C-alpha cells in the first residue's frame, strides 16, 4: 500500500518503519516545522515486563479511517506533508509500532496536528494490540470505547 498522494503517506506495513525515509518525505514539504511522534514498545508497565507486542488490523477500514484523520488534520492546520504509518504483526521492545509526522510552515501547527493524529488514531483506527509478557502470558489491551 503506497502513498495516497504526493503529500500524504498513509500505510499499514509488516516491516520495521522506515524512519530515515519518513524524514526525507516530510522535509520535502519545505515548511519550517516537522513534528514526528513514534509510539514505541514500553518495556515495563508497573511490574509487568513486555517482551514484544502483536498488532492486528482490519486493513481496509483502518486505512480508510487513517485517511479520514489526515483529511481532518489538513482541514484544520496548514499541513504541507503528513505521514501516518502503523505496523502489524510482531513488534519488539525498542521498535516503533506507529509513526505520525507533519510538516507545516510554523512549529505550533506541526505539534498540534501530530498530537491530534496520534490521539485520534488510538481512539478510532481499527487496529488491536496484544502484549506478550516475559512470563509467556499474553493479553489483548483493553481500552475505553470512544465513538
Amino acid at each position: 500500500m503506497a502513498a495516497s498522494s504526493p503529500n500524504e503517506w498513509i500505510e499499514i506495513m509488516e516491516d520495521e518503519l522506515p524512519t530515515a525515509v519518513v524524514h526525507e518525505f516530510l522535509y520535502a514539504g519545505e515548511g519550517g516545522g516537522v513534528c514526528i511522534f513514534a509510539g514505541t514498545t514500553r518495556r515495563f508497565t508497573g511490574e509487568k515486563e513486555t517482551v514484544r507486542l502483536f498488532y492486528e488490523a482490519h486493513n481496509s477500514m483502518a486505512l480508510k479511517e487513517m485517511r479520514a484523520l489526515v483529511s481532518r488534520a489538513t482541514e484544520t492546520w496548514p499541513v504541507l506533508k503528513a505521514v501516518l504509518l502503523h505496523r502489524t504483526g510482531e513488534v519488539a521492545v525498542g521498535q516503533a509500532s506507529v509513526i505520525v509526522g507533519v510538516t507545516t510552515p510554523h512549529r505550533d501547527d506541526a505539534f498540534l496536528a501530530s498530537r491530534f493524529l496520534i490521539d485520534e488514531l488510538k481512539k478510532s483506527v481499527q487496529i488491536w494490540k496484544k502484549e506478550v509478557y516475559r512470563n509467556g502470558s499474553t493479553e489483548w489491551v483493553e481500552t475505553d470505547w470512544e465513538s
Partner: protein
Amino acid sequence: MIVTLRFFSVLREAFGAGVVEVELEAGTTGAELIELLAVNNEEVEKLQSVIRLAVNDDYIDPTSLLSDGDDIAVITPVSGG
C-alpha cells in the same frame, strides 16, 4: 440468507477463526446478530455493549437490516498506537 463475519483480536481468538459464514433469517438487524453471537460466546456477551458492526467498511446502525451476502466486520474497542 448467508453473511460473512470477520472477527479480530479477542473475538478472533474466541471464535477460533477470522472469517466465518453464517446463515441468518431474512430481516435480521445488526443488534439481533450481536445478540445471537452473545448467546454462544461469552467474549461477545462481555463486550456486547461496545461492539459495533461495519458492512463494506462502513459502520452501520444497530437497527439496520442485514442483507444476503453482506461482509460484516465485528469491531471491538480498538487499541492501536
